[in-house]
C-alpha cells in the first residue's frame, strides 16, 4: 500500500493513541469495565494495523515473532509469580494482602491488593498481546514463522 498516503499517515498518527488507549483500559480495569484482556487485544490491534498497512515484513521487524512468543509465555509466568509471591509470604495463592510488609512492620494490606491486581492484569495484558500477534502472524504468513 505504498501509494495510500492517507492510510499510511493515518496509521502513524493513530498507533500511539491506540497503545495509549490500551494502557488506559488496562489501568481503568481496577475500578470499572476494562482490564488486561481487553487492553491486550487493543495493544495487539495497533500492531495488526501496522502490519495491514505497511506489510507483514515491516511488522515483523517492529515486533519479531520470537518476542510475541516470549510475551505469550512470559505473561502467564508473571501472573503466576504474583500468586507464588503471596504464597511465599504466608498467604494463600494470589492473596494480595500479603504481598507487602516485613515481619514486625504492619503494612496496609490494601497496598498489596493494589499492586497485586496491577501485577496480574499486566501478566494478562502481556500474554493476550503476545498470543494475538502470534495468531495474526500465523494466519497472515503463508509459511510458518518460527519463534
Amino acid at each position, binding site marked *: 500500500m505504498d501509494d495510500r498516503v492517507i492510510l499510511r499517515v493515518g496509521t502513524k498518527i493513530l498507533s500511539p493513541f491506540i497503545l495509549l488507549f490500551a494502557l488506559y483500559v488496562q489501568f481503568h480495569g481496577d475500578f470499572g469495565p476494562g482490564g488486561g484482556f481487553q487492553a491486550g487485544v487493543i495493544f495487539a490491534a495497533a500492531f495488526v494495523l501496522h502490519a495491514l498497512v505497511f506489510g507483514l515484513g515491516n511488522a515483523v521487524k517492529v515486533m519479531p515473532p520470537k518476542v510475541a512468543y516470549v510475551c505469550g509465555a512470559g505473561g502467564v509466568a508473571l501472573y503466576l509469580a504474583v*500468586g507464588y509471591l503471596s504464597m511465599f509470604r504466608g498467604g494463600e495463592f494470589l492473596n494480595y494482602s500479603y504481598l507487602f510488609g516485613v515481619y514486625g512492620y504492619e503494612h496496609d494490606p490494601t497496598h498489596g491488593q493494589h499492586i497485586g491486581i496491577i501485577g496480574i492484569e499486566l501478566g494478562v495484558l502481556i500474554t493476550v498481546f503476545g498470543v494475538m500477534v502470534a495468531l495474526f502472524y500465523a494466519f497472515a504468513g503463508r509459511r510458518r514463522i518460527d*519463534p
Partner: protein
Amino acid sequence: MSQNLPALLVVVPMLLAPLAALLNRSGPAWAVATAGIWFSFVTAIQLLQRVMAEGAITYAMGGWAAPIGIELRIDLASAFVVVIVSSIGAIGVLYARTSVAAEISEDRHALFYAALLLNVCGLLGISVTGDMFNVFVFLEISSLSAYSMIALGQDRRALTSAFQYLIMGSVGATFIVIGIGLLWVMTGSLAMMDLAERIPMVWESGQGDRTIAVAFTFLTVGVTLKLALFPLHLWLPNAYTYSPSAVTGYMAATSTKVSVYLLMRFFFTVFGKEFSFEQMQLDMVLMPLALVAILAMSLVAIYQTNVKRLLAFSSVAQVGYMVLGISFGSVLGIAAGIIHLFNHAVMKGALFMAMGCVMYRIGSVRIEDMKGLGKAMPWTMGAFVGGGLSMIGVPLTVGFVSKWYLVQAALAEGRWFVAAIVMVGSLMALIYVWKVVEVAYFQRREDEAEIREAPLGLLIPTYALVAASFWFGIDAGTTSSVAISAAETLLGVMP
C-alpha cells in the same frame, strides 16, 4: 507450605508450562515437564493420605472464602481421581521422551511438553475445584491443550480429527457453561457446596424449577459429550487413532476419567442423588445408553483393522461400564464405577503404550502389519497380552476386579439382564484382543530378524502400568476400599 499443597498441586504444572515453552529446547523442556508432573504425583499421594486420615480439605484461593471466592475442595473422590491423573501423567511423561523424539519434529517438542503440563494442570484443576465456573475454566485449559497435542500426530488426518474434537468439545463446553449460567441465574451462586443447598430450595419453591431441570439437562449432555458416552462419542476414535502414541496413552487413561468424575460430582454433590435419580430419572437415560455402548462399541471394535482404533472403540465401551456403575445410583454401583476409573486407566494406558512401542519400531499399528511380532518384539507383545487379559477381565487382573464389583452391584438390585450384558461385553473383549494376539503370535513375517525390541525408555513405563494392572488385581483391597469410601462420600452416607 503444607497448607498450600492443594493449590500447588495445580499451579506448579501451570507455572512450569510457560517455562517449558520459554526454554524452547527438547531436553530441558522434558526435564521441566517431568519435574512438574512428578511433583503433582507426590503431592497427590500426600493429599490422598491426608484426606483418608482427616476428611475433606478445603483451600480458599486468594483468601476469599467459599460462596464468594473460589474454593478448592478435595474429598476422597477427588483425591482418588487426582492420584489417577497424576500417576498416569508421571508414567506418561517418562514414556513421552523416547516416543515424542521419534514422532514429533524437534522444534515442536518444547510446545508439546508445555501442552502436556497444561493438560495435567487442567485435569487436576477440574478434580480439585469446588467452584462450578472454575470447572469450566480448567475444562477449557485441558481441552485446548488436548486439541493441540492431538494435532501434532504424524498422520495428516490428525489435523482433521483434532478439528473434529475441537468442534465437538467446544459444543460440550458450551453446553456446560450454559448449564452453569442457568444455575447461577436461579441461585446466585457458583460454589458447589452452596449450590447443593440452594438448588433444592429453588426446586421446592416451584418458581424456576423448569430452569433447574434445563440446566441439569445441559450439564448432563455437555459432560457426556466430553466423556464420550455412546451416541456422543464420535470425536474419540479419530482423536485417539491419529494422535502421537504418547498422547494416546496418556489421554485415553486420563481425560475421559476426569469427565466421568465430573459427571458424578454434578449428579451427586451439586444436584444430589434424590434430584438426579428420582426427579430427573437419570438412570432411565444412562443405563440403556451405557448398555448399548458396551455391546455396540465392542462389536465395532471387533471389526477394526487398526489396533489403535480398535482400542479407541473399546475405550468407548469401557466408558459404558463406568457410566453403568454410576447409573445404579447405589454405593456399590458408584464404587464399581470409581474402581473402573482407575483400573481402566491402568490397563488402557498399558495397551496404548504397547502400541506406541510397535509404532516406534514398524511405523504402523495395522493388524496385518503386526504379523510375527510375538517373536520379533516379545516384551512389547507381552505387555499387550498383559493389558489384554485385564481388558477381558481374567482373574488376578484389575479388569476382573471392576467386573466383579459391577456384576455384584447389578445382582444386588436383581438386574440379571445387566449382569449378563457385562459378561457378554467381556467375551467380546476376548474376541478383539485375540484378533491381535493371533496375528502377532501365530503368523510369520519375512523380515522378522530385522525388527528389534522397543527401547527400554518405552518398555519400562509400559511395564510399570502392566505391573500395576496385576498388582492392583491381586491386592484389590486398597483401591476398592478407597473407592467404596469415595462412593459413600459422594452419596453423603458416611459410615
